[in-house]
């Protein structure tokens, strides 16, 4: 895989910046660094990085605000580093446009792997919709056809919408709210609270072992993702 042209690291601790830069040296040609939110937004606007690694504990501004601002500026993936182990915070960040989050202390190897996955996904999602194959399951977006081992699987419209939404996100974790918005189009009154029940029923149809799912993965307390790229 080709290296990314540039990556931006927004992190106030110099030592962690060094560690992250070392970890991502193989992933990108050029690595920009910023120590504050304002600096980071400025660099993002001028350099248009292909990936941003954003630390939440910045001295000058709330991480969520920086994330939202970055999302307005860029379509590039954003990986958030957080010292707090809080699902609520993850949900907040994903809803604010982050693509992935890593909790401190993290493994540099894992960070590099996540960065690569995000770059790959960002490039492939630009391509036209095409059949996707996941663990023996073939999904054909154009014809809304789902097959396992040559046998067609019948999904309800909601199940199809959920699967399609997750697969289209290309392995990105979608929060419950994001899935609601995509599937029910903000129609309140529909049984949104049963999303988890629909997911369970969907898994019974598409997974080879529904009690040990491999296609639709639960991100506890946050949402779901399809195991598309990793």
């Amino acid at each position, binding site marked *: 895989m080709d290296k990314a042209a540039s990556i931006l690291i927004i992190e106030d601790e110099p030592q962690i910046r060094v560690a992250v830069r070392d970890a991502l040296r193989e992933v990108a040609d050029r690595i920009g660094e910023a120590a504050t939110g304002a600096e980071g937004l400025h660099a993002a606007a001028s350099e248009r990085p292909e990936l941003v690694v954003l630390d939440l504990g910045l001295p000058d501004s709330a991480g969520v605000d920086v994330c939202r601002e970055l999302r307005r500026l860029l379509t590039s993936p954003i990986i958030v580093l957080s010292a707090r182990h809080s699902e609520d915070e993850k949900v907040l960040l994903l809803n604010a446009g982050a693509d992935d989050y890593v909790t401190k202390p993290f493994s540099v190897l894992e960070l590099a792997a996540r960065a690569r996955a995000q770059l790959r996904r960002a490039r492939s999602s630009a391509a036209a919709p095409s059949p996707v194959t996941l663990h023996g399951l073939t999904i054909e977006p154009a014809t809304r056809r789902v097959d396992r081992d040559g046998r067609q699987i019948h999904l309800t419209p909601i199940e199809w919408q959920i699967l399609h939404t997750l697969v289209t996100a290309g392995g990105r974790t979608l929060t419950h709210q994001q899935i609601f918005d995509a599937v029910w189009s903000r129609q309140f009154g529909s049984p949104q609270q049963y999303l*988890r029940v629909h997911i369970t029923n969907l898994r019974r149809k598409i997974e080879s072992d529904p009690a040990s799912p491999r296609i639709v993965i639960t991100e*506890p307390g946050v949402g779901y993702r399809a195991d598309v790229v990793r």
Partner: protein
Amino acid sequence: MTTALPRGAPPGAGTSLGRLRERLASLDIPLTQTPPRLAWFFWLAVLGIGTFAMYSVQARIDQAHVVLLYLLIVLGASASGGRALGLTLAVVAFILIDYLFQPPYNEFAIGKPLDWLVLLAFLTTAIVATQLLARARAEAIEARARAIEVTSLSRLASETLNAGRAEDALVRMLEVIQSTLGVSGCVIWPWSPDRGVGECITRDGIEPKRRAPNPLVQRVAERGEPLTLSVDDGLGAEHSAPGARELFLPLGVQSRVVGVLALSDEQPIVFDPPKQRFLAALTYYAALGIDRARLVREAEHAAALREADRLKDNLLASVSHDLRTPLTTIKALAQTAALRGDTAAAAIEEQADRLTRLVADLLDLSRMKGDAFRVTPDINTAEDLIGAAQRQAQGLLGDGKMIRTVVDLESPALVGRFDFTHSLRILGNLLENALRYTPAAGSVELGVRRDGDALVFTVADNGPGIPAAESERIFQPFYRHADTAPDVGRAGLGLSIARRLAEIQQGSLTYEPRPGGGSVFVLTLPAVDIEED
């Protein structure tokens, strides 16, 4: 020690002493008043002079004039000297009329039947008038006493409600009690069942250093009964009410004793019924005052607790940030160095990971102590939870160990209302333990079923199991199996936190031995029935 006053009867204000009597004259109700000697001399003299004057002109006056003058004298005497004097004069006048003014004169005989009528009419009128006067007088005094009581009580009530600090209200109240009852000493000891006797409140304010006659105050408060002491008896001696020099009265609000009022005087303290009634009202206000002081204190305490809680939240957040940031740097740099082939760096990384776990344990412990686990129950399916738990435990598999799931995929999905993250943490902890104790190439069984209103998750291993004696202790914080080396694993909080997390979601976590050997941990969570669309 006998109780001075009958239970339930309000203790009263006392006046067997001249000094007290004077000070409290306005409150005394003189139903058995003995008139001053002066009034007797005066009215007897008036009677004598009147009789002499009329007798000297006996020939020229009518019997009716005599009767009317005597009536006037009797009424005047009973108005100023009281009932006894009035009645005495009425009888004397009766005899004088018969003896001196009715024929036959100078003997106790009645001449005409009409004279009988005059005599009886006089006596009846004199007695009835005397009685009416005495009653009116008593009622006037009583009314004045009531008015003074009401004024004092309303003053006390407004003190209770308006004083800036609750303690100030009690001090003012003591002033009123002491001045009204005329005792020389008067203090309040607040009391509560859990805190015992509090700091003494006197007319000069709170006196923290003053030592309570603890056993006595404690005893009065616990029994809710008054107690009297005579100085001669010494502490703890039995004594009945008359002659008491110290009186301890329980102060109660809604049948709760909140303190003790201690009265003392150089002379025996004895209260009559109206004083007892008045004192009962006073003690009730004093009790309300103490209760108000307690409520104010509790409100302040609650505010302080909230502030402490907020500080702790902030501390938790900053500890988690401040400790994890350097750990992140250490781990990242060590890992990078290890990748370059530095073997010592791998050890650094390992220790950094261990420190990270300890930080997590500490945070958990402080959350557990402070009730800081937040729970957000949601509609979730059992299968989703089982799948996530199994996925999370994949990293722990080794030595050919495996996890087997027992889920009924034919029936409709099992649904419950629980916090997914907390429940996952419980199952994750149970799976981690089970995998640790199950022998190599063994399998851990993870299952779920519906039982009534509950989803029942089971994690079963075929490890050594847990002795019956230990099966509850394992859920206590810092429990560690006797065979476990001190530096293995974590702080021993896992199961205690897991149980706590289950309980805050209206679930439970229990242990039972597995038939044929091994352990079964049973987690129940609330199940719900939903309508599928």
